[in-house]
């Protein structure tokens, strides 16, 4: 008995060593590349930046004081929220409809449609933004030529943010759709057959079977999309020039973070903006998790 016990503990010691060897690269990487930088950003946000990141002067909450009275930051946060309010619901509704249609057994050409809808997902947003900027071009763009109007899609402050949200929706539909198709395929088919026998219409089936059964996928998509939309950068950076008249009413918080930290070289203030963004996103994540427990239906 006794011999066996020491043998066991020897085996578990060996297992523990293997376990640590296996996780060591990842844990070291996470600590060096993520956890130390995260703490460093908190510290940076309390500093005024000298040249080339050197000569940090501790200034306490100075950056935050400046940030809280800086209307540009609040405006950019609001811009980002506005963008999310369009992109997230529109992207989800359209892609859900597409997914439901593509799961219909009698529809042909499914894989062709799926390939087309997913196409923007494999394109660099930089290229996507260039193409849309050309489509939106006020003088020579395809859209104004088709509608015979002279609309300044991306430099009129009142509509520029909508134009960018449209690019966002166009880019993300395929991704949402693929996730929804995955969720739809997991719904047992008997449910629909039973509903059919009871005389439920397709629309009733959609609202009483599909939507509740899809709620875990739906929640996942909503959550990732909200966070994705709130950290929007690429499209914004490529579409909006520094001289664009609509920049103030359109720029996202991450865009502002980038310009402050890397174009203006003001790392301390940039770090403070990053902290505000992080707190904002963590708050939203917490709220979403509270909501999840109430509304998501897990089988």
């Amino acid at each position, binding site marked *: 008995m006794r011999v066996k016990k020491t043998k066991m503990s020897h085996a578990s010691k060996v297992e523990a060593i293997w*376990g640590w060897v296996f996780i060591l690269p990842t844990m070291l990487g996470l600590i060096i590349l993520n956890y130390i930088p995260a703490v460093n950003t908190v510290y940076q946000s309390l500093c005024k930046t000298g040249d080339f990141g050197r000569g940090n002067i501790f200034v306490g909450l100075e950056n935050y004081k400046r940030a809280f009275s800086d209307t540009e930051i609040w405006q950019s946060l609001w811009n980002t929220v506005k963008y999310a309010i369009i992109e997230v619901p529109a992207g989800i509704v359209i892609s859900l409809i597409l997914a439901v249609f593509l799961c219909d057994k009698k529809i042909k050409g499914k894989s062709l449609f799926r390939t087309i809808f997913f196409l923007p997902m494999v394109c660099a947003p930089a290229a996507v933004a260039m193409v849309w900027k050309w489509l939106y071009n006020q003088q020579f763009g395809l859209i104004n030529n088709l509608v015979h109007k002279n609309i300044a899609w991306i430099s009129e402050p009142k509509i520029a943010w909508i134009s960018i949200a449209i690019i966002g929706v166009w880019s993300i539909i395929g991704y949402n759709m693929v996730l929804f198709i995955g969720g739809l395929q997991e719904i047992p088919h008997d449910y629909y057959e039973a509903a059919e026998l009871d005389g439920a219409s397709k629309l009733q089936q959609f609202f009483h079977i599909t939507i509740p059964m899809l709620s875990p996928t739906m929640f996942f998509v909503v959550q990732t999309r909200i966070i994705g939309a709130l950290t929007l950068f*690429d499209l914004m950076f490529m579409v909006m020039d520094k001289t664009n008249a609509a920049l103030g009413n359109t720029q996202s918080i991450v865009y502002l973070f980038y310009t402050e930290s890397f174009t203006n070289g003001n790392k301390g203030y940039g770090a403070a903006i990053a902290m505000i963004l992080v707190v904002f996103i963590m708050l939203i994540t917490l709220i979403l998790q509270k909501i999840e427990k109430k509304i998501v239906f897990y089988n």
Partner: protein
Amino acid sequence: MGTKYTIRKILIYTFLSIAAVIMIIPFAWMILTALKTNQEAISVSPFYIFPKNGWHFENFATVWKSYDFFVLYKNTLLFILFRVICACLTATMAGYAFARLNFPGKKIMFSLVLIQMMIPSQIYIIPQYLMVSKLHLMNTMAGLVFPGIVTAFGTYLLKTGYQSLPKELEEAAKLDGCNIGQTFLFIMMPLAKSSMVSLGIFTALFAFKDLMWPMIVCTESATTTLSAGLAKMQGQYGSDYPSMMASAVLAVIPMIVIYVIFQKQFVEGIATSGGKL
């Protein structure tokens, strides 16, 4: 019943087709513009949909030469390759350990993995940049790959992958005298291939699309990636629309070709990994 069904079918096809056309138009316009002269591209009345005086394929050759696309392709390919190899290697080991091995500190370490996934990446960027610049890795491939050497998301993905595998295989391997390293390398890792393919595709796409990090770290054209290169070209070409669209085509074509070939893996990879794209 019959007519009702036909109407439904027509409605579905109409909706799908309209959506497909809207998705295709930007691509079509990109290609058509790339084949025009600038004169044709900016001609409003008459407005040309197709190039009028022949298809100007030489636009591609011009941008290829004027902006060294060969270097951009090479950099992007290496960047993707290194990121994928690093991510798969570190994540498959850590994922296996978290899924199947017992060791002290496991719970705390795994919660570090989960917390990293929840924090927006913007919080790391400034210090990561300062580290790269202190290590003199600016404008190098090492600096470009640097923040993606390990992946919390991949570790989590692989952990779930290993958890879904049957335990019996491991026990059988143990009885046959395999140690943990052998069991992992020869039995378990090959079985987790599909999770690793998902992670590989996800990592490749993420690296291919990334714009901010390459712009920060690779300020020189010779060291940058396609995405960041495009940002430079946009400023450079100004209002030469065919050149701009030709470079956009050159930037998206490789990934589209790969996607069309490995479609099933792409779609499955995204569907199973979901992730933070």
